[in-house]
């Protein structure tokens, strides 16, 4: 049953087909400790995406920019993932898709727990579910990466 559903749902824009064993186009906006661009890509999200790319036999290609510009590109399928330290309550939610939270913690000390997510193009559900499943099984690693980044 589950095996039969492995290529379900499908992507209208074939993102999975293009990225697996190829190139993952990642938009990166500086927001430490989640994302860093100086001197080279780093941070919790970057590390997670690196491992994800490795898991699907792909190479990550980084594009730097402001979060808004990157998300607009993502909306038009010009990027495959945007990493910008986004949380699940992002106002972009209707126009792009967000993953399951890879980490839920009170990270800004305001007493509420933020749900940290990555962003993917709208409606690329096969791609979204694949990344979701990866993030779900790597929640412990995300926590470890965060505590390393904060030291």
């Amino acid at each position: 049953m589950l095996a039969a559903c492995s290529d379900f749902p499908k992507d209208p824009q074939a993102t999975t087909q293009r990225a697996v064993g190829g190139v993952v186009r990642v938009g990166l906006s500086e927001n430490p400790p989640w994302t860093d661009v100086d001197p080279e890509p780093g941070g919790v999200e970057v590390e997670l995406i690196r491992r994800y790319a490795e898991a699907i036999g792909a190479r990550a290609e980084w594009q730097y920019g402001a979060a808004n510009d990157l998300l607009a590109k993502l909306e038009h399928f010009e990027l495959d993932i945007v990493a910008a330290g986004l949380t699940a309550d992002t106002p972009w939610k209707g126009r792009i898709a967000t993953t399951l939270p890879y980490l839920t913690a009170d990270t800004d000390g305001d007493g509420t727990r933020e749900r940290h997510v990555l962003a993917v193009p709208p409606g690329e559900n096969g791609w979204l579910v694949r990344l979701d499943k990866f993030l779900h099984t790597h929640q412990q690693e995300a926590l470890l990466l965060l505590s390393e980044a904060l030291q």
Partner: protein
Amino acid sequence: MRAVTAVDIPDDRKPDYRKAKWIQWITIAYLVSVAIVLYFVLGSSQAMRAAWLEDMLSIIPSVSWVIATPIAWRKPDGNFPYGYHRAVGIAYLASALPLLGLGLYLIIEAAMKLFQATHPSMGTMVILGEPVWIGWPALLALAYSAIPSVILGRLKLPLARRLHDKPLIADAKMRKADWLTAGAAGIGVIGIGFGIWWLDAAAALLIGLDVLRDGFAQTSRSIGDLADRRPTTAEGGEDDLPERLRDWLCRLSWVENADVRMREAGHVLYGEGFVVPKDEGDLIRRINDAADEALGLDWRVAEFTITPVASLSVVEGRSDGASEPARAARDRHRSRPGR
């Protein structure tokens, strides 16, 4: 002018009323649970949203029925000398109007999504610690929104017919048609699964059209009831009770000619008979007896006043303000053999 006789639910139909009340409460509880369950599996599917909104709105008819029906059977009093039966019609209109609005809203929204080529996202849901594509629980939730609903509709329909309760009949029929909404939404979800993004908005558009059609039919029917259209059967067909009453009056020994007009108020009927008597002897007693007897002809007749007139032409212009089909029905009736 006698005060209106209070009509009570006939004894043999009281169990139907109690059963209907139970089913309505169960319906309300069930629909609330459906609304909650659907909310958690919406994703950004337009069809799922349409099914969810339709479900929430379909709580209104059951709630207004539960509120209005006990009011409708209250005894007439000084403030409401005709009784409270109109409460049914008002409740009916109140549950029909929102459907029009929702239908339009769903159509416009789905059309915009199609036009903007919005790709609906449906991601993952963690169930028992396992990430699962949200489409699967969504399909299950849709089944939950349809199957009990259809059963409730089938249970309500015979009760509604026996109680001559139009809002309840409309509600039961909508419930029975719920599998259409759920089916369309299911096709939308499966479409998303196959990567056919537009199928979702197309399904939502269909649901919207269906809701609009329903809203239109029910609004016009409920307005007709409130505006004193001639009586119809519970299903909305033509009721020949006015003709039967007129023929019955014509057959009375002291009556030369007669005409009848009737109107509907919720469960019950009010009517007036205009009678040309053969002679004026004992007229008051005869009219009283006839009016009392008329009440016994059908449990729904709440009041029947009989007015003696010199000739029917006096009332012709009014009582024959009956619609063309009504007049045709009457002519058919008159030409029936064996009368």
